[in-house]
């Protein structure tokens, strides 16, 4: 129906924007495989030397482990707090929804510098500064919205008759939710948790204030790196995290996909 020339122009424009969006990603990934020790793009030839460099460096490995600890704790807490809240928002709470929505949104988009200085001043009397849980507790505030948004969206697309069927066959409401609904919306929960992890791994300002300069998670190490060292090891470090996170997501998703039909068959 549409004139092919106009639709071609729109598609071309969208394609150009996607190139703009993805080109920096390509640059970082390619440079991480560079064989030379200066930043030239495209790299003259490819090698794994920068991956060897960072994975044999004590400081980088420590940064990885610290980021992993903080991120995992953040993802876990965000999921435990966010999933019940998402159920409440999409099923049980009618009045006051706007207030809760606004709070969750504020937790997500309030400027990180505000969260950083306020949590720093607040942690001083509690002795939570310079602790891994202290940082994860603060990161959980920004992790919760990712879980809530994804699970609310997941529940919107979920056919509640499946749960009702379980109830008719004698399951208690709680059992119907745990046995039927949760496995079926698991992909939404997992995506939310992974995004909560990623925002924790990438967060810089709160990490700098809460952990000071003694312990450095990956984001702080990268931040120091981009301002001094000009070699491709940073690109290799950040690409490794990305690959790990994507592999984690894909593994869990595939495992979930294989497990789901049998669980439904058994319990439903």
């Amino acid at each position, binding site marked *: 129906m549409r004139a092919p020339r106009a639709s071609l122009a729109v598609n071309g424009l969208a394609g150009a924007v996607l190139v*703009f969006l993805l080109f920096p990603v390509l640059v970082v990934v390619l440079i991480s495989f560079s064989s030379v020790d200066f930043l030239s793009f495209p790299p003259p030839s490819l090698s794994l030397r920068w991956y060897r460099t960072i994975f044999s460096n004590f400081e980088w490995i420590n940064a990885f482990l610290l980021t992993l600890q903080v991120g995992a704790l953040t993802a876990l807490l965000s999921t435990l707090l966010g999933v019940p809240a998402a159920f409440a928002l999409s099923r049980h709470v009618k009045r006051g929804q706007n207030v809760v929505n606004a709070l969750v949104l504020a937790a997500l988009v309030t400027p990180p510098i505000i969260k950083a200085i306020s949590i720093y001043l607040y942690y001083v009397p509690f002795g939570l500064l310079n602790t891994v849980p202290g940082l994860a507790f603060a990161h959980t505030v920004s992790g*919760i919205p990712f879980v809530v948004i994804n699970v609310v969206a997941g529940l919107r697309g979920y056919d509640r008759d499946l749960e009702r069927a379980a109830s008719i066959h004698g399951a208690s409401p709680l059992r119907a939710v745990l046995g039927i609904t949760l496995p079926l919306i698991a992909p939404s929960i997992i995506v939310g948790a992974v995004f909560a992890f990623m925002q924790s791994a990438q967060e810089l*300002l709160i990490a700098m204030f809460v952990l000071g300069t003694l312990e450095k998670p990956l984001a702080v190490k990268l931040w120091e790196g981009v301002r001094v060292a000009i070699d491709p090891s940073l690109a290799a470090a950040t690409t490794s995290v990305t690959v790990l996170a994507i592999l984690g997501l894909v593994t869990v998703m595939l495992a979930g996909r294989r497990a789901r039909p049998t669980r439904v068959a058994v319990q439903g």
Partner: protein
Amino acid sequence: MTVSTLPAYPARSARLKRISAEYPHALGLLLLAPMLSWIAVFFIFPTAWMIWQSFSERGLQPYATILTSAIYLKVLLTTLKICVITTVGCLILGYPVAYVLTTARPSTRAVLLILVVLPYWLDFIVRSYSWMILLGRHGLINQLVTGLGISSTSLPLLYNLFSVSIGMIQILLPLTILTLFSTMVRIDRRLVDAATIHGASPWRAFRTVFLPLSLPGVYAACLLLFVSALGFYVTPALLGGPEQTMISQTIMVIASDLLDWPLASAAGVLLLVVTTSLLVLYSRFFRLDRMLGGMAR
């Protein structure tokens, strides 16, 4: 609860049902309570504490310092300027992509959505840094420019308003596209077809039917982008010059170099007032679950 229409519960859930009938909000509150307490303890209380700290030592003096100092006002104006440029740039670039997403076949759409969300997986510090590589004096763009003879000297592409805007637009584009897409995908395409059948040109059908229907998404994206842009720290620090200093950088300097906590808190409170008013505006008009179209769906 809608399950009340169903027959034959065991006694245990009959009690639950009676409780939930007597206190219809009890279950919802119970499920919300852990999250709300967490947000209160680790977000609301610290923020309130910061507001208190901004007044407690020197009263209104920190606020007077900020609002009367030419330097701080200039930073504030620069921040607003960069936020406006970024928001407008994101909308112009994001709209066509979101539009194409709505017209694409489901399989193509899935692939495109993955591509749109892909940059989010790469640390944004490093994404800003990749622009340093591309836009630098000997970067790829300048190599092309001088190599092709467009200009004999390399262009000043880095450490200015241009590079900051490019960097911030690249980081905020996925959010733009997902927000616009989640509105556009709900537009009934038959309305556009109806206009075309009655003789409207494709452009006119788009302008008079599709565009007005997509405006709620544009407004939502506007507010969300502007608030997100207000808080940027890394990108202006890496890609901008001294002229592009944004408010977060200034607060950072006040806190960590000058160690003037009342002043840092007061600047934080002013920033908070702006972001909170924009958020209140947003939540009056838009629902949270529509925000990112459920991230990638």
